[in-house]
């Protein structure tokens, strides 16, 4: 009686059945558009001034900003930068967090106690606030934002990796390998890590969405320095003050950011589904 006892109907075919794993074509297509658009617009002249604050028109499909720059072009160029920042931050969080968590979960004993409690300290500061501390210490720059968002995510990643590793480390094949004389590093590298990879990579995509929002929040707050190619958070920040007279300025990066996070989330669900 635990499953749905109704006979299959058209409506039930249309509801999302948790057992079916559908390829998220729309999400993949959107991410491909963002990536390709960013690459194609790489050489474009972003800073050529046209008429200031022109509403959307056939020449400027997304209008122009306060300095008369084409919003559409900036959106395309900025997308690649936004994705790149979040991807680099995710890589930092995934690498550091995995090593931290795998060592803690596999080692056990005092080392685990130490690493887990150090991690609790890390987790006791909200991720975005931790990122701000890193920026306060290292200055306002794109590289700092990447590092800041990356370090802000290490804690939750390490927690997941630890529980995955602790579970795997007690499985018979790991004990068998140890009995055959494998060293702890080898055990971690060849036996524990491959078996946690699936959970870790599904989480990396979830984390990627978080990194997207947080790095955009930081550049929105004006902490990303002043690079010539904007990212979407910075575009939102620039459009904030003229929002009521020129809403298209904020609509483009805001919607693009939301769609990208949505696409990444969908992708994460798809990868994470058994």
């Amino acid at each position, binding site marked *: 009686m635990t499953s*749905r006892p*109704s006979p299959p109907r058209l*409506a039930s075919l249309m509801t999302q059945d948790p057992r079916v794993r559908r390829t998220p074509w729309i999400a993949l297509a959107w991410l491909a558009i963002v990536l390709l658009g960013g690459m194609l617009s790489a050489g474009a002249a972003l800073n050529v001034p046209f008429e200031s604050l022109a509403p959307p028109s056939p020449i400027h499909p997304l209008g122009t900003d306060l300095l008369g720059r084409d919003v559409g072009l900036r959106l395309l160029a900025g997308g690649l930068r936004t994705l790149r920042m979040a991807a680099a931050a995710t890589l930092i969080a995934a690498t550091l967090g995995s090593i931290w968590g795998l060592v803690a979960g596999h080692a056990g004993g005092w080392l685990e106690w130490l690493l887990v409690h150090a991690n609790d300290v890390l987790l006791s500061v*909200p*991720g975005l606030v931790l990122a*701000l501390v890193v920026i306060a*210490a290292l200055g306002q720059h794109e590289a700092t934002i990447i590092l800041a968002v990356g370090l802000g995510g290490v804690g939750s990643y390490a927690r997941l990796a630890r529980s995955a590793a602790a579970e795997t480390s007690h499985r018979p094949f790991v004990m068998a390998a140890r009995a055959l004389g494998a060293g702890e590093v080898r055990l971690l590298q060849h036996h524990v890590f491959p078996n946690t990879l699936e959970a870790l990579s599904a989480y990396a995509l979830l984390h990627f969405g978080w990194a997207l929002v947080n790095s955009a929040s930081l550049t929105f*707050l004006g*902490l990303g320095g002043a690079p010539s190619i904007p990212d979407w958070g910075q575009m939102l920040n620039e459009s904030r003050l003229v929002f009521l007279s020129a809403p298209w300025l904020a609509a483009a990066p805001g*919607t693009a950011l939301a769609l990208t996070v949505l696409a990444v989330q969908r992708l994460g669900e798809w990868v994470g589904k058994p």
Partner: protein
Amino acid sequence: MSLRTFLRRILGSLATIGLVTTLVFFAIRLSHIDPLAALLGQGLASQAQAAEMRAALGLDRPLLQQYALFLSGLVRGDLGRSLFDGQPVARAIAQSMRFTAPLALSAWLLAIALGLTLGSLASRASAWEAGRPVRWLARLTGALLVLGTSTPVAWSGLLILWAAVPLLTGLHPGPVRDVAQLALPVLTLGIASGCSLGRVAEAGLARARREPFFIAARARGVGPLWRLEWSALRTTLAPVISMAGVEAAFLLGGTMVTETLFARPGVGRLLVESILRGDFPLVQAIVALMAAGYALFNLLADVLASSLDPRLREEAE
């Protein structure tokens, strides 16, 4: 939660906050950023004046001595003074807390209420007993929840501002306008946070609806509807509240964005400004405060959750 666990949690939180403060103190001071560089760069102070200020602030002393001074000040309840305007840190924070405390607390409560309501609605998407219109409404709600979790606060806040401006422009200064000005950031944060809580509630409730106890209750004809709903909600209330504690991290980080967006002089805005100005005493105090606030929200959530679910009480013992 027994008194002993409660006290142990508080002690643990205090130790953590102490560690966080120490780490932030050293992280900021070991960086090569000079807080007086801004003053010097703008020509507001001469080299001699800057050296004098450094001596007055104790910035020319060895690091460990600075830390000892900081600790001794902390014991006396003195958090130091802002490097920017010389105002005592405690007073600057107290002033901005008047704006942030109502915002964070009401956004948190709104998030829980919204999360449970929307989650309960969305969980009917595959409920076999629900009628077709209900299922479509549920599916729509589920889609909105996903959309809400993926929309950055900076963008949804702008949208809410845009929608509310026609309503706000006619208001005269007074209590009504104060409430309206609080309502906008509360809505922004509460909706964003409520959507992620809603997804947790949705998953829990959808599972509860397939459990034998719920099917049996339905078959027995338990009514009215709210009593039936409550029987399912009870099982998933505790995880949702626990999640709400974790979600407080998002809220505290989100205050920085919303306070910037809605021009509220709160703690989040103060933190961002202090970082832009290199105002160390304020930065370290606010980060410690945010860690404390996060611990408080988590404790509150755990007390609530364990009073709702007896199994959690036994686990904690």
